[in-house]
């Protein structure tokens, strides 16, 4: 536990899977020098195998107070390497199509929009993922060189690039697989929660650029902040895979979904995205959170006031970010 903890809430009902956050992060931090395959932030389609492929089966996290073993994702097979294209063919005669030079095997949104279920009850939703800047970070404990530290003033988890020797115990230990080994540099790297931006009063690139206004940023102990209100008061924002034991600080408002359609073509009294599936991801609080969202939505639909809806709608973009820091840009 650090003195303060900055966190993020991502409202999955507002995420449209546009990957603007992904590119905001990539163009800011990971577009070169061995980071090409890394997506500190990405949006995966659920149900799906995600990125890196099958990360939920890759181990890591805590088993009581001991680290659970984990495996290291492979560059081409599990992350997927950005393809080179043979642009020369465009200048050649004939109708040869532009194709990657090497067959790609996976990528950060490889199974995008596939989801599960059969028409007319097929379903999916988007899950943006980034480092959770955990309060009990398995990555930090796994490093025998104490190269990973958690900042006292905001709980941001960082890798000291001078101390890192590329042992990758952290990569195996992070159950979210949000540490990436840079094979060119020979060191591990991860989301830095945009601390250089924060220190200038700017919100994280992924949050700030979100066109759906799906991301709130605040300190957890800030009673006026969205984190405290959505997580502790309204209890509609839930951690992803809390059972991994790392105490993540990115929270998600679980997705509502339209009703299932019965064989007679009528709507059933059952949501398209099965509650059990959401419980697997976000834990037992899912039912109550969805119920709360439905109730408050209904209020708003009836023309009544709803503080929760107003908070989630975020009429003023600037209100979504409470950084407690000098703000040069709002």
């Amino acid at each position, binding site marked *: 536990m650090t003195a303060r903890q900055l966190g993020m809430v991502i409202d999955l009902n507002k995420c449209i899977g546009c990957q603007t956050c992904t590119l905001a992060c990539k163009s800011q931090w990971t577009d070169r020098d061995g980071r090409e395959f890394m997506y500190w932030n990405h949006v995966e389609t659920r149900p799906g195998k995600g990125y890196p492929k099958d990360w939920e089966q890759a181990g890591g996290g805590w088993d009581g107070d001991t680290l659970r073993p984990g495996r290291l994702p*492979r560059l081409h097979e599990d992350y997927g390497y950005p393809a080179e294209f043979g642009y020369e063919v465009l200048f050649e005669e004939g109708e040869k199509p532009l194709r990657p030079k090497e067959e790609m095997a996976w990528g950060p949104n490889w199974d995008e929009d596939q989801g599960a279920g059969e028409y007319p009850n097929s379903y999916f939703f988007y899950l943006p993922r980034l480092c959770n800047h955990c309060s009990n970070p398995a990555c930090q404990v796994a490093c*025998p060189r104490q190269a990973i530290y958690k900042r006292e003033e905001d709980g941001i988890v960082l890798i000291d690039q001078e101390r890192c*020797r590329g042992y990758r115990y952290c*990569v195996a230990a992070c159950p979210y697989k949000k540490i990436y*080994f840079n*094979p060119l540099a020979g060191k591990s790297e991860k989301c830095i929660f945009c601390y250089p931006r924060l220190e200038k009063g700017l919100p994280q690139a992924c949050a700030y650029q979100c066109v759906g206004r799906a991301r709130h940023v605040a300190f957890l102990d800030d009673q006026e902040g969205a984190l405290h209100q959505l997580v502790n008061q309204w209890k509609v924002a839930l951690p992803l895979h809390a059972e991994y034991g790392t105490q993540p600080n990115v929270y998600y408002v679980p997705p509502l979904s339209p009703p299932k359609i019965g064989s007679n073509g009528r709507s059933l009294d059952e949501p398209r995205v099965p509650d059990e599936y959401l419980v697997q991801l976000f834990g037992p609080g899912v039912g109550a959170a969805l119920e709360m969202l439905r109730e408050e939505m209904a209020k708003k639909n009836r023309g009544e006031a709803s503080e929760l809806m107003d908070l989630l709608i975020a009429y003023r973009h600037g209100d979504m970010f409470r950084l407690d820091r000098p703000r040069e840009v709002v």
Partner: protein
Amino acid sequence: MRLHSSLQRSRGVSTGIITAVMGAALLYGCAESPREGAGAQMLRETNRLSDVVQQSVWPWRLDRWEGMAATVLILHPQRMILPRLDKGAPVEARLWAQMDGGQLLLRIDWPDTSEDRYSTAHTERFADALAVQFVADDGERLPYIGMGEPERPVHLWFWRAGRETEALTAHGFGTLEPDIANPAPEAVVQRTAEGWSLLLSGPLPVQANPLAVSLAVGDGAEAGRDGRKRLSSWHLLRLPARPVDQARLATLAGAAGSDGDIERGRRLVQERGCTACHRLPGSPSGDQGPDLTLAGGMHWPGYLRRSIAEPNAFIVPDDRYRTPEAGSLMPALNLPESEVEDITAYLSSLR
């Protein structure tokens, strides 16, 4: 071809280490006087000392070591500190050492059936690696074998297949950092059918004579890195053409052996409760203290003797081995001297 025949020849003599070292002395005629002190003799008998010959072998190539005998060092899986290498057989490395002017040349051959080179196209692979550890000072007691101790730093030459070599320094486990005082060694490497043959050279990182060194190898195929390595115990190199600190040699010789009774020691580790906390052959469950199943392969008897008699003298750098008051978890046993010696002899036999 020439390399191969030289490898074969040295394997032939490696069974008799003493013969091998003496062979080198005779061949080059530049070792110390044959009537050397009892200390040096003791160190030789326990394979803890060998002579470095002075010879100009420029240009430094791997095939210029014909006929020179090697020192054989056994590298054991590191099991004292996490992360460790829990499984695996020891590895036999052959070390040739020469001085050419102020340059130290070390050729090390070690078996490793899979060739694992660093690859920028993979995130899950590890490269084969070798480190030479040099004790930085000329203290009368050698520091802890695992990266030295606070205030007892070590210098390292570090090589990894497919990467640049590095000069590193450390003063305890987890403290490894770039060594700004020394240049990275030059490396000439050859992949042989059975493993690696590596020549490292550079200015002497330490001026002490004898110079204490140890070898560590990491096997990429078993995700070797950090503590997941095989490690030799300290070995003394007597450098040519410069004065030898005879007093230090004599003191170090006192740490090189034990005249305790191995069999009595074997019984005593049960009777005195050592096995309750330490893993030992036949007692696999102790995990409160460092694993001692290979104690003799990694530590000199002197280190073991001191640790038994004074548990607080040096605590293996792992939080699990300390009490909250930062003392050793191991109680002072106040054993009679003869029992300390018997246990020392027994632990030293474990390798």
